């Protein structure tokens, strides 16, 4: 069957989209990361000059190098920023999982007629801008903030806790912001689970707690894995939360990138940081894709 030009265009559209909005910018950033810093506009060299023809083309490529990447590897600041990001994203994912699983489990076990409303409440925060919600946490966590006032008032503490501008505040911010991404996939797997499986486990001699670990947990694993990836991947490159809540104490790669780009004006180095971050993220993304495919095949 021959496809009409219209049909072909329709198929091409998503590719075109990816080409313009993903591949092209990526290549530009890659090119900048291989360039050198200079004081001009734009602040990097070489520039590609089409008027010089083939010779210009060759000269252009001769000037590109991996200097920035070598610098990233040598300067412990960047290595530490990457490691610190991995650590913060990892720990936040674990906390999000623990809290998210409990909430998803409670949702799945709640009476049928309440479930739609409860799921709605999980999604509700998305109606407010992400940025505003993070700002709201400043009001809660700062020294004279709501949390400290409450704790002082009920006499649990005698001096205000210092939470703002510490890693703790970043953990709180990430766990809070990404919780729905953990809850929803886990809830989806738990909700479709056949209740009689648990009764069967009990009938065959396991306690309710054992039945949870032997049946519920393994069957919800696809949701757990999806949730963890959905939290870990964006948390790794997170910028707003560490910037607003973490202060100068918190070293995260997103912040480092921002500083490199806007404060130091070193576009090539900032681009190199971005490229390495992308490479770091590709590993979990590919793993996630593999897992999703396995899920599809398993059904």
């Amino acid at each position, binding site marked *: 069957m021959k496809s009409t030009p219209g049909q072909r265009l329709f198929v091409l559209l998503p590719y075109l989209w990816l080409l313009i909005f993903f591949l092209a910018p990526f290549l530009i950033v890659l090119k900048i990361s291989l360039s050198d810093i200079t004081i001009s506009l734009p602040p990097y060299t070489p520039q590609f000059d089409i008027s010089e023809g083939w010779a210009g083309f060759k000269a252009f490529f001769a000037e590109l190098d991996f200097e920035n990447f070598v610098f990233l590897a040598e300067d412990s600041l960047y290595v530490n920023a990457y490691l610190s990001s991995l650590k913060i994203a990892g720990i936040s994912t674990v906390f999000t999982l623990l809290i998210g699983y409990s909430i998803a489990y409670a949702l799945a076990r709640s009476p049928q007629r309440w479930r739609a409303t409860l799921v709605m409440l999980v999604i509700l925060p998305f109606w407010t801008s992400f940025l505003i919600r993070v700002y709201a946490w400043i009001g809660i966590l700062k020294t004279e903030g709501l949390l400290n006032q409450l704790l002082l008032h009920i006499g649990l503490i005698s001096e205000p806790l210092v939470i703002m501008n510490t890693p703790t505040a970043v953990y709180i911010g990430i766990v809070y912001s990404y919780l729905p991404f953990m809850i929803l996939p886990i809830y989806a797997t738990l909700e479709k689970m056949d209740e009689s499986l648990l*009764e069967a486990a009990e009938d065959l001699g396991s306690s309710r707690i054992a039945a949870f670990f032997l049946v519920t947990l*393994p*069957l919800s694993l696809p949701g757990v894995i999806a949730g963890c990836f959905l939290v870990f991947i964006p948390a790794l490159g997170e910028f707003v939360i560490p910037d607003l809540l973490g202060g100068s104490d918190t070293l995260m790669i997103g912040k480092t990138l921002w500083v490199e780009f806007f404060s130091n004006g070193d576009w090539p180095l900032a681009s190199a940081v971005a490229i390495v971050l992308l490479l770091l993220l590709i590993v979990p993304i590919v793993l996630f894709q593999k897992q999703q495919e396995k899920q599809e095949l398993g059904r």
Partner: protein
Amino acid sequence: MAGFSSFAPWDEPEKKPLIEIKSVSKFFGAFQAIHDLSVNIYEREFFAILGPSGCGKTTLMRMLAGFETPTSGQILLDGQDIGPIPPAKRPVNMMFQSYALFPHLTVEKNIAFGLKREGIPADETAERVNGIMKLVQLTDFGKRKPHQLSGGQRQRVALARALVKRPRLLLLDEPLGALDKKLRQQTQFELMNIQETLGTTFVIVTHDQEEAMTVSSRIAVMNNGEIAQVAPPMDLYEHPASRFVADFIGEVNIIEGRSGTANRGGIALAWNEGSDDLRVISDATPPVGTTVWLALRPEKVGIAKSRPEGKDNAVQGEVIDIAYLGNITTYHVELPTGAIIKAQESNLHRAANRGITWEDKVWVHWREDAGVLLTA
């Protein structure tokens, strides 16, 4: 078994039942699912609980399994009250209607699940799992996951998983409901063979009367949370205790009438003014003049074009429908009272033509001992 063997522990007064259900009631909120129900189930029985949906049969089974507790009354197993014992600790296992196989475990691991929870050593577990897989003909499927099995195979895994625990009582909740008709009939006989081989007491819950008739030693017919009758299949069919049971098991003609005087071991039944009274042999002798019902099975009713000689009962009517089913033909005959009587004739000869067609005036006839006189 269906009355063909001498296995009838319920008729032996000194025999102790395995399960005693003693005036059990169960409420869900204000709704009463089970009404003061009592029944005994004996060792090695294949006991069927039969009834329409919503009759409380599933609730009764779940109380035996331990997933529901009676609101009042007791359930004894070997004379011991099992009310406070949780499902995990009861020597009772259940085969679920949905089979409830663990989708993440292989057939072997599904079957071994219960033995592992008991803490049975690995070699004994393997031995027992292999043994039961042989019994249910699953030997080659041990490494498969449930979604790689057919419906019939899944049913056998569910059966094996429950049986491998060697329960005192095995509960089967609509075990064959998900299978197609051919496979269901074949599986019924497999179930009976397995039950006889192991000697385990089976309690099966079903809404399919044919299934209950085929497999069970006794059937409890339930209606509205009560047991309407408990009897072996043959008794249930030939001696139903009420119109509900007569109607629920098989096909039946019900003729309403007024009881007359008793003579020669039977009584007269006045059913239609201007017609002769019917003669019925009956164990029950209700007082003269009470409303009673005659339950007649269609296959015990004959049909003739002219008034048959020497028959105990003969009634004239008009053929309004003929259902030819191959092996039998059912004639629907309308009586002067407006009641429809179904008469069934076996087609013993090929293309048997009785010369009876629609709107013919015919006589339906039956013996005086063909029907059962019901007072309820």
